[in-house]
């Protein structure tokens, strides 16, 4: 059994190519270590799976996460901010539809 900086190489790392890939990911620096493990950012992915993950799979998750954030952030932002119209006629229509009063700001930006 070979030792490395990242801990003992698992038995199933028969393929040198796979092992090199796993090492390059550096996702499990403390595996089998007696030191307390740092909290993983990838806690939603089972550790056993991470160990088997290849680079393309990780990239897939990163891209997926980015896409989810990109789609969700405007929705989240909308919930967190007041919606401002920039058209007086639209404001009148919206006020008629919703029966709300209008708060109208005139901002002259010299």
């Amino acid at each position, binding site marked *: 059994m070979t030792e490395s900086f990242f801990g003992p190489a698992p038995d199933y790392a028969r393929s040198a190519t796979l092992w090199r890939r796993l090492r390059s990911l550096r996702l499990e620096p403390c595996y089998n270590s007696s030191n307390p493990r740092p909290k993983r950012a990838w806690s939603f992915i089972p550790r056993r799976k991470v160990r088997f993950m290849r680079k393309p799979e990780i990239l897939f998750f990163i891209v997926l996460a980015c896409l989810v954030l990109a789609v969700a952030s405007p929705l989240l932002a909308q*919930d*967190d*901010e*007041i*919606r*401002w*119209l*920039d*058209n*007086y006629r*639209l*404001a*009148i*229509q*919206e*006020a*008629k539809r*919703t*029966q*709300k*009063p*209008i*708060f*109208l*700001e*005139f*901002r*002259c*930006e*010299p």
Partner: protein
Amino acid sequence: MAGRAFDAQVVLSPTDSPRGKLLSQYVCARITRMDDTDVGLFDRDWNNTLYYFMMNSDEQIYMRYGGRDARSPDSYLNLSSLELALAKGLELHHQYQKGRLKNAERPKPLFPREIPLLLERTISRNTCVECHLIGDYLNVHREQDGKLDKLTHMYRSPDIRTLGIELDVPKGLVVNEVRDAVAPAGMKPGDRIAAINGTPVWTFGDLQYHYDKVNRNAKRIQMAVVRAGAPVDLSITLPERWWWTDLTFRQWTIEPRVYFDSVPLTDQEKREHGLVERRGFASKVKRVDMFAEMTKSHELRVGDIVFGVDDVQRDEVANTAELFIKLRKTAGETVTLDVIRDGKRMQMKLKSYKMSFRK
């Protein structure tokens, strides 16, 4: 900052903040171009770069929020007082929906394209219709048509501090300090101003707008205040030149710029200088602006006494020479001053300066 920080704080109000919760009960709109705005309906002092209206879809205005004075564009802008106004606006809206508020008559529409100078100099050139230009060109047209009343149109938005009212700004129209004209009328700290000449007011913007509507020849105004929950009517005697404000920030093109300030002489000083016109506007120069030298407009010095302008020494309104020129002369006009310098009488020319906008 010209209200920039306040504007940003309002626009970016978090929805879970008290202000955000109030704003989310409104349809919020922010208009940055005046091209298609009915300036007749949304009339205001056009030297405000930030102004708010609370209204409904029938274009009935419940109240205004904003207003400035010569000290600063945001003397009366305050997030706490805005929250009070927003809450009151909702209350008025509910009353309106239940038919408890009378409809006000809609002012005559006026669009920027109907102001010939604005159309010629900005709209046709596709440049921004800035708020101050609306006010300025309206006044230029009034001057051309002989309808300009400088006391009303040039000295817009009289300062309530001239009456002796100092507001507790975060609390809206709650009075913090009283002195001068309002103290003998019975106004007290803690009073909330509720109406002026019978018109209800909810914000400083309302108060300033309706105070501006008072005839400049008026000698008294009526104010209603709420004291310990009960209404109290006050009759206030207006001081002389109650309408006067510092015009520096306005940059009117109708205002003759004279580039000096003076203080009226006392009767004693007038006698000492042999001035027989006791009610004249003789005044002592206390400051000469550097622009006077740059523009070669006059050669007055600090300490000079100006006792006549074009052989006129008294005026029913003006108490200083520069106020007389601003009120009675047109911008760009050259006048002859009667001056006393080091005890010697002399005459000198003063060419007033007319502001222009590089638009």
